């Protein structure tokens, strides 16, 4: 809090002698108070305190109003209420893939050939941006099923099946190349295609989510 040292400053004759700048600025308003004798030397400090306290309450009030205005942008309850879905794997012949929607996000279910699996495993220790073994990206005993989010980890496009030199996917947007394990091998994407929770209900049925 600022306090004028003495009453000899240019503001000396306003108010009750020693005053703060804020008091001087509001001197017109406070004149009636001063006349009423309520403007003792300590009131200046009290007024500064009220000033700050009012400001603090104002800031808190604005923040309290701003938060609902921002949070309303987040997913609404109906968007969040997402059921898991089941998928019949017999619909995906060996060597092909399907793209389906889960929580409105595209998902790949790829039925890999032994050849594709072998290629992925062979590269397990090749230099990679986001190293991971092929086994860590599938469920034990179900290595032929690669089930991953289909959004390129760069900016979200859906990569093209079998594109690129690793036989996995190539992203049409900015050229990221993924291998048959969905690991990023080339291009701007920072991460492997993401895994997400799913369970095998039987050998031919999965539950996503």
């Amino acid at each position, binding site marked *: 809090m600022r306090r004028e040292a003495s009453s000899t400053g240019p503001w000396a004759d306003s108010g009750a002698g020693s005053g703060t700048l804020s008091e001087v600025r509001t001197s017109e308003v406070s004149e009636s108070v001063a006349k009423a004798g309520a403007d003792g030397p300590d009131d200046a400090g009290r007024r500064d305190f009220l000033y700050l306290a009012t400001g603090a309450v104002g800031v808190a009030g604005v923040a309290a109003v701003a938060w609902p205005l921002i949070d309303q942008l987040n997913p609404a309850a109906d*968007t969040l209420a997402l059921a898991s879905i089941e998928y019949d794997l017999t619909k995906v012949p060996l060597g092909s893939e399907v793209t389906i929607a889960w929580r409105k996000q595209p998902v790949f279910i790829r039925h890999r050939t032994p050849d594709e699996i072998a290629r992925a495993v062979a590269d397990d220790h090749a230099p990679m941006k986001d190293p991971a073994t092929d086994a860590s990206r599938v469920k034990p005993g179900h290595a032929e099923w690669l089930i991953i989010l289909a959004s390129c980890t760069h900016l979200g496009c859906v990569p093209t099946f079998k594109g690129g030199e690793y036989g996995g996917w190539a992203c049409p947007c900015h050229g990221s190349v993924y291998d048959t394990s969905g690991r990023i091998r080339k291009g*701007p994407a920072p991460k492997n295609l993401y895994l997400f929770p799913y369970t095998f209900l039987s050998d031919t049925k999965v539950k996503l989510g």
Partner: protein
Amino acid sequence: MTEHKSTYEPKSGFERWLDSRLPIVRFSADLMSFPTPRNLNYWYTFGGILAFCLVVQIVTGIVLAMHYDTSEAGAFISVQRGIMRDVNYGWLIRGIHANGASMFFLAVYLHILRGMYYGSYKAPREVLWWIGCVIYVLMMATAFMGYVLPWGQMSFWGAKVITNLLGAFPVVGNAITTLLWGGFSVGGPTLNRFFSLHYLLPFVIAGMVALHVWALHVPGNNNPTGVEVKSDHDTLPFHPYYTVKDLFAIMVFVILFAVVVFFIPDAFEKVDNNVVANALVTPAHIVPEWYLLPFYAILRAIPDKLSGVLALAGAIAMLFALPFLDQNKVKSMRYRPAARMYFFIWIVFCLILGWCGSQEPQGTVIPGGAGPVIIDYGINSVTWLARVSTAYYFAYFLIITPLLAMSEKTLPVPDALFMPVLSKSAAPAE
């Protein structure tokens, strides 16, 4: 130029009465009589053209909004069947609005290049320049959100890629994209909020334009010589001299505009946008609108996600930084032959970046093989051309411009701007 004295004299009793209450007639009269350098060329008409473009977008946009359905299920149909086929003249109004965005950007780019060439960003016009940069950013945001509204494949995937840019930021990135989308991906909630903002932002732009003109009227116009106005001999009243010149330029611009709308209405349109948005299939080749291509090329040139996004933002930030980077007192490049040369090279690289942005990253530049691979792409690939161009883009601002500002030997600058005008026929061409 300092204070422009008001020359308005109320003529009737009513005008006097109004003038002492709301001097709006005086305000308009002073705008019209504003002293303007007498040597402004046609590059100076783009301000008026831009104002015209904004009005066109707002008028056609408000009409489109009357027929547009903001729902995820209805948006595409309301544009493709409703506006394009059923609504009377809907095809025309959409044609003007969609192509109007391209015309708007064409004008704003020429306007910005004009400012760079004549040094209009230098003191005392830095604030004017920065407000212009803000308008440009707002225009990009507005056009981006407008492009999402027809809800075609390009709309959807453009929206997804651009919003995902913000996901590049560590820690907060994903929270920001979810907040923008209102879901786990681009969808109905995203479409609705983009419509709301697409309606709002043009009016924010209009407000910024008012500030832009205000900031223009404090120091007054720059001019092709870059020499400040010194006396009344240097200026002409805005009306009728420049109102007529601007109107003539607007007419020529409208002819070009009409040619696009009536003869090549889908010249800038991607066919994929006539296919309804599908969250499961990305079109084989997605590219943004032409006016964003150079930035898109810069984004792709960098093989790391966050750095790519920062480079893209940095490319725009360079415009804001220009007044700090170029401290040379000589404004106009007419008298800066070296700066002029590097500037023209910069324009060429911007065009090359635009071309790169429209091509596939692994495409070849000179037909034939991609050549030996350096790091990730062949030397003859679009990606490497984009990298070289990106390097020049930044070097122009961060190295060449500051160095030239200190070291360039400039040509003699005229003392006053009206002399070269009066003696132009006698003097040899510049």
